[in-house]
């Protein structure tokens, strides 16, 4: 009963919310951008005439094929998604501080942990919709471009890879939520997420990638090295622990820390 009530109110808070559309627009720019690169590679002459950077696109060694398109898509949507997901969770938790409504929800006949649970649920639903939209958009764009080298197996593999990356990225969300409630706003979590991605990139080059939470997804999608086929079980355990510890820390922050907004 309480869960339903709190969950309903959390979704109500998204009404007329421009940020939902902004994130959809932001993530959907990924496939569009890659499609533009594919077109430049395929039509360098026309691209040059139009003043687009055809030469640089060619220098990048890109091919206008399905495998190349999907590989780039995985990379851009995977990393872009991780940053965007940090924005989403920072917004869902941080808006209570921006709107000065945190104080309104902390002295109610509702356990504070319910706000953590439901806000994470809202973030999850938001993320699922974004990922589903971008996958459909990406495949549609791939067909619209008429790229060569299509195979159902290839697309399925890329989709599964992206879904796994999206799912694993979500496991990092509670830590960002904790930074948001600790920092009482959006700036700290977004800065933290970007810093962790940079650190993840660094760890990725040292061989510790499979043990550092923010290296694991980049490793999976081939950002820091060639994409790994299978992650060790320890990587999943670390991500699961990060998830659980993030939830515990966020709940503890709301329950025990001073909320002197």
């Amino acid at each position, binding site marked *: 009963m309480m869960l339903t009530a709190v969950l309903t109110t959390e979704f*109500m*808070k998204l009404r007329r*919310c421009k940020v939902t559309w902004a994130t959809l627009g932001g993530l959907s720019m990924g496939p569009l951008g890659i499609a533009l690169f594919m077109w430049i590679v395929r039509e360098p002459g026309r691209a040059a005439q139009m003043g687009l950077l055809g030469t640089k696109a060619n220098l990048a060694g890109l091919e206008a094929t399905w495998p190349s398109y999907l590989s780039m898509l995985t990379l851009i949507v995977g990393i872009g998604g991780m940053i965007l997901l940090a924005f989403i969770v920072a917004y869902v938790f941080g808006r209570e501080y921006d*709107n*000065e409504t945190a104080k309104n929800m902390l002295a109610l006949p509702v356990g504070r942990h319910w706000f953590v649970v439901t806000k994470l649920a809202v973030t999850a639903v938001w993320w699922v919709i974004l990922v589903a939209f971008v996958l459909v958009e990406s495949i549609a764009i791939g067909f619209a471009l008429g790229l060569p080298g299509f195979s159902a197996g290839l697309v399925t593999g890329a989709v599964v890879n992206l879904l796994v990356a999206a799912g694993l990225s979500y496991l990092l969300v509670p830590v960002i939520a904790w930074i948001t409630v600790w920092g009482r706003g959006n700036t700290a979590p977004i800065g933290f997420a970007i810093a962790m991605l940079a650190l993840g990139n660094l760890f990725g080059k040292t061989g510790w990638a499979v043990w550092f939470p923010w290296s694991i997804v980049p490793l999976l999608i081939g950002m820091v090295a060639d994409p790994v086929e299978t992650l060790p079980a320890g990587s999943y355990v670390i991500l699961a622990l990060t998830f659980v510890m993030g939830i515990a820390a966020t709940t503890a922050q709301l329950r025990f820390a001073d909320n002197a907004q």
Partner: protein
Amino acid sequence: MSADTVIATSALTKRYREVLAVDVLDLDVRRGEIYGFLGRNGAGKTTTIRMLLGLIRPTSGEVSVLGARIASGRTDVFAHVGYLVESASAYPNLTVRENLDIQRRLTGAPGTRTDDAIDRLGLAPVADRRAGRLSLGNKQRLSLARALLHAPQVLVLDEPANALDPAGIVEVRELLRTLADRDGVTVFMSSHILAEVAHLADRIGIIHDGRLLEELDREELHAKARAYVEIAAKDISRAESLLLGSGFSHVERGGDGTLRVFDAENRAPEIARLLVGAGLELTQLTPSREDLEAYFLRLTGGEAVTETASPAEGSAA
């Protein structure tokens, strides 16, 4: 603590590193009374209110509301508490009605309560307007409606009259009075509008530097407020000298150029005879009594009068 106690604090203390925000505060607020909590900026009012609501944790001491100790994780008591802390706030993308509906769902109040609260606070004309587009006054009304929506037994209101126009202040005053008198709602309110508190509060607590300086009801306030005779004359300095020279030992000069003669209760005719007899042109002579503002300023060391003349100075003049 009596059987009627609704809000009680016991040796409540909050320290932020070097700053002692609230210092061993003992409060006892009884059922159905309106308790005015006064203090200057930084006196510890909002910190106390936040501790009453469990928003911040005391360094030491205890808070109980409706007999339940406020501790982190304890939420059931808040079904009976409505509150407004510091500034009015709402979700700007949601309408007034939607904002209240969120509160209704979270407090488990029946569906009709949203409209009741809208009507009660006069929000009907803006009920479907987004909160982000409300005037400050209407935003304050929305926050008050949110506090009242679930018909709480206790209201904790930090500056409830903030941003309201004079008509709104009267309206809220009457609403709070009705809630206390008719429904037995206990109201704990802070305000910087002292006249408002004087009108409304049954009891007043004055906090200064985190300590409760005084707690008094209307009768006690009346008894403690000093009586004085206020004088305005063409030559105010001469009037002052005459008074000091005639045994009126406590004469203060007000910021508006008047003289206030304390310890002169029932001596207004004598003062009038003295000054007029000396050929002084009097323009005002009014027996009066300190109001809450003057009493508050005196108590917290912020005397409203600008100069104090001693008898010696007066004689020399």
